[in-house]
């Protein structure tokens, strides 16, 4: 198995929420992402994995509008994303969290989520001064929504706590609540379990699964730790040195010698590959 084999998981089903074609990003002489084709079927949990420096976050930033691809195109729900600014991408329905938590530290948990609701609120600034009934109602509804979202991630009682004072795990969950507030169709989670212990990781993955079933979200996970995504993903895409080296179901990817090589180094493939395949069959 030298090249990713064609299989049901990689073939586009025709109902893809996000489709990236031939995406390349160059920083001067550095080729961070090279000719990557990538798609996320609607309603699925997809994962983008790869060792550190594989180009995962660069790819992520191209989707969210922080970087413009050097070549290639990314379409979301039929709309071209390349060239759009980050806030426009959010308004199209892509919410995100950050690898290194980026909450608004000096604002309360509740205010953080309210900021996430920003683009869903219609009030203009002069209405904020005059504060007509419509604004009062809109703000009250926004506050209710924010508290409901905090409740969803188990932080209702932390609503008035400054984000910077929250424990680490709570900050991760607040970031997810804030991303959900932007009313995404696609939720991008950038290494959501970084710094978590196995138990917290398991809980978070359970929660991500719940998000898909109860809110109907499509989810893209970015991870460098393969184990985290294996149990939860419908499809796993592996990047290494900016190139897509494998794609498929978790079991297929786990058995792919190129993936094992990327993670464990040359020579490990023959030894570990057999074990992984045996595990997949069991």
């Amino acid at each position, binding site marked *: 198995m030298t090249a990713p084999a064609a299989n049901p998981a990689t073939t586009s089903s025709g109902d893809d929420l996000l489709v990236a074609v031939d995406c390349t990003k160059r920083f001067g002489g550095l080729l961070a992402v090279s000719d990557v084709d990538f798609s996320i079927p609607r309603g699925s949990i997809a994962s983008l994995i790869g060792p550190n420096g594989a180009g995962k976050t660069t790819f992520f930033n191209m989707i969210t509008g922080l970087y413009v691809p050097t070549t290639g195109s990314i379409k979301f729900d039929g709309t071209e994303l390349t060239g759009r600014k980050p806030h426009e991408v*959010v308004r199209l329905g892509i919410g995100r969290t950050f690898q290194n938590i980026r909450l608004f530290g000096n604002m309360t948990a509740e205010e953080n989520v*309210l900021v996430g609701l920003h683009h869903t609120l219609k009030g203009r600034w002069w209405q904020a001064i005059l504060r007509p009934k419509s604004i009062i109602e809109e703000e009250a509804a*926004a506050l209710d929504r924010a508290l409901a979202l905090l409740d969803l*991630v188990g932080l209702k*009682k932390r609503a008035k706590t400054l984000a910077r*004072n929250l424990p680490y795990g*709570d900050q991760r969950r607040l970031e997810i609540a804030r991303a959900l507030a932007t009313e995404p169709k696609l939720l991008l989670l950038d290494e959501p379990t970084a710094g978590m212990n196995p138990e*917290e990781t398991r809980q978070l993955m359970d929660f991500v699964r719940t998000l898909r079933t109860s809110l109907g979200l499509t989810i893209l996970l970015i991870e460098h730790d393969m184990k985290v995504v294996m149990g939860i993903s419908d499809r796993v895409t592996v990047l290494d040195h900016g190139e897509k080296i494998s794609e498929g179901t978790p079991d297929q990817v786990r058995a792919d010698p190129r993936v094992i090589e990327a993670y464990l180094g040359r020579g490990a493939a023959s030894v570990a590959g057999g074990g992984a395949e045996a595990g997949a069959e069991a």
Partner: protein
Amino acid sequence: MTTARTARRLSLPGPLRDLDRRRRNQLILGVVLVLAIVYPLVYRTLEAALPFLPWPGTAVLIVCSTFAILALGLNIVMGFAGLLDLGYVAFYAIGAYTTAFLASGHFGIHISWWIVVWIAVAIAALWGVLLGAPTLRLRGDYLAIVTLGFGEIVRIVFRNLGDVTLALPAFLGGAVLIGPNANLTGGNVGINPIDPPTIPLPWGGEIVFSNQNPVGSFYLILALLILTYFICIRLRDSKLGRAWMAIREDETAAAAMGINTVTTKLLAFSLGASFSGFAGAFTGAYQTAIFAESFNFAVSILVVVIIILGGIGSLRGVVIGAFAVQYVNLTLLAWASQYVNPPVQALGNATGIGLLREFNLVTFNYLIFGIVLAVMMVRRPEGLFPVEHAKAEMHGIGVSAEVTASSADELSLAEGDLVEAEPDSVAEAALKADTPPETIRKRDLPEDTP
């Protein structure tokens, strides 16, 4: 600002002590307002009765109020949106000159001040956008330098446009477009006199809000200050206020939440500038004369000092800061100098040191503000009346307590304390709220790890 936050209309019905605090603050605000209204009427009597105390004159209170409006405006730019602006005086000058152009004999235009003030506000806001648009990519020091330059340019332009001749080159006909020697801005001499605001009285005559009538003028600027303060509260507690603070905290994350950072920052610049135009329109008309040199860099710095001293981001803080700084500047130093100057000058005469012989405490005002600011930075960097988060940030209050108290807190909080959301939320089972603090503690304490 704890109090205003709990006083927010949309916040949850908090515990009783918050209500009490809100009542108490309403009471304090009421007392301050009554004092402000009564003081100009009894000032002469007070001064006559206790002449040895440093009573501020009504004219001083007018300057205080004007700077309070300036500080509230700059607070939107610096305190809310986190953009360092060192050329804020430019908009003050633009507001004042707009008033002078439209309500004086300079161009022979005499529009009522009550209309001119809104034109001045609009033009200052427009210039806020014009300055903001090209500088939005800049942050921190770079933005400070550009705005500083803008402040100086505006002053110099107003000073130099007193004698303008603009003609086409000779080979294009040499037609004179402006001038010759057109006096656009009054140059060094400034513009004088400017029409002050007036209100006609039903029984004939009129109230004139100029420096000939400081008491009446004080009530006018007090009304403008209250209006400004009210608008600032409303803006802070709106989605725009939250967007500003989000940009201040983390611009990238704010954009990732769907906030258009460009328009939001432009709004901060133009709304901040409009308040400055407001203050400028008042000052020009109240003084009935303006000079380009009075809109110098020191004014910008003074407003920044006021904000930092009062507590950046805190509306109450910056207003108190404005009154404190200008009171010290205009009244207290002059009062103190009558006790301090003679002995120091005597010492100078005795020792022959020229610096001491000509000592005058009043001229040391900026040195004193500089020292106070330096001391503040060390002892109380969040300002005199800080917002809650600044206090926490500067002193690390609540961080460790929050982590350890986490689970106990959860038990003690009554279930129905906060607004009712869906009782059986989907993730309740998946994410138990009390586990992370436990594990954090275990990880943080080395003796707990096996």
